[in-house]
């Protein structure tokens, strides 16, 4: 699904908000999450998941092509942990699956 499909779906699912405002809202929602996470806030959307930053220690890495060692600086990476409901729902169509909860 792309942004334009998302806009179309959000327009048809409700009656009051015109396409222009739906489109603006999507941009704003994304910008708000990006801004929040970038400035160090954890972002928790109940049922859907949580965005947060994970700290990565500085370490030695290798260029896989040349094999030479490079220094990797400490940095943050963006982490998304799916929420319980989303984890369960994506497995709904897989009847063989029982939900062993794993925290990783």
């Amino acid at each position, binding site marked *: 699904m792309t942004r334009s499909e998302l806009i179309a779906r959000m327009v048809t699912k*409700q009656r009051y908000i015109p396409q222009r405002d739906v489109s603006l809202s999507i941009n704003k929602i994304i910008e708000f999450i990006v801004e929040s996470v970038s400035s160090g806030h954890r972002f928790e959307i109940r049922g859907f998941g949580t965005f947060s930053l994970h700290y990565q220690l500085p370490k030695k890495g290798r260029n896989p092509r040349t094999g030479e060692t490079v220094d990797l600086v400490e940095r943050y990476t*963006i982490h998304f942990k799916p929420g319980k409901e989303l984890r369960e729902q994506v497995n709904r169509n*897989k009847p063989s699956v029982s939900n062993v909860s794993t925290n990783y």
Partner: protein
Amino acid sequence: MSRNDEYNKHPSRTRADIAQSLIKDIGLNGREAKEMVDLFFQEISDALVSQRSVKLSGFGRFNLRDKNCRPGRNPKTGESVVIKERRVVTFNASERFKKRINIYQK
């Protein structure tokens, strides 16, 4: 700085905070703002549940991965269990999102 100070400086944000920004910046009323936020996440969830990945420029891509079953352990009791095969959601942040994180590191 203790973990608690860090938390107070950057408290978790939620749906309600996004709704507030829609009210302030786009001029939606409270009910509309809540509806936009809820629909946004609902539609992404629905797409994933129907096995479609979701790509939003400037944000990232939500993908699905099928994991095989594998042996695991109950970390509390140490007993061996089989983790069944399952489908998981992954998120890859876009390059633009990743660049913004670097600003935070200085």
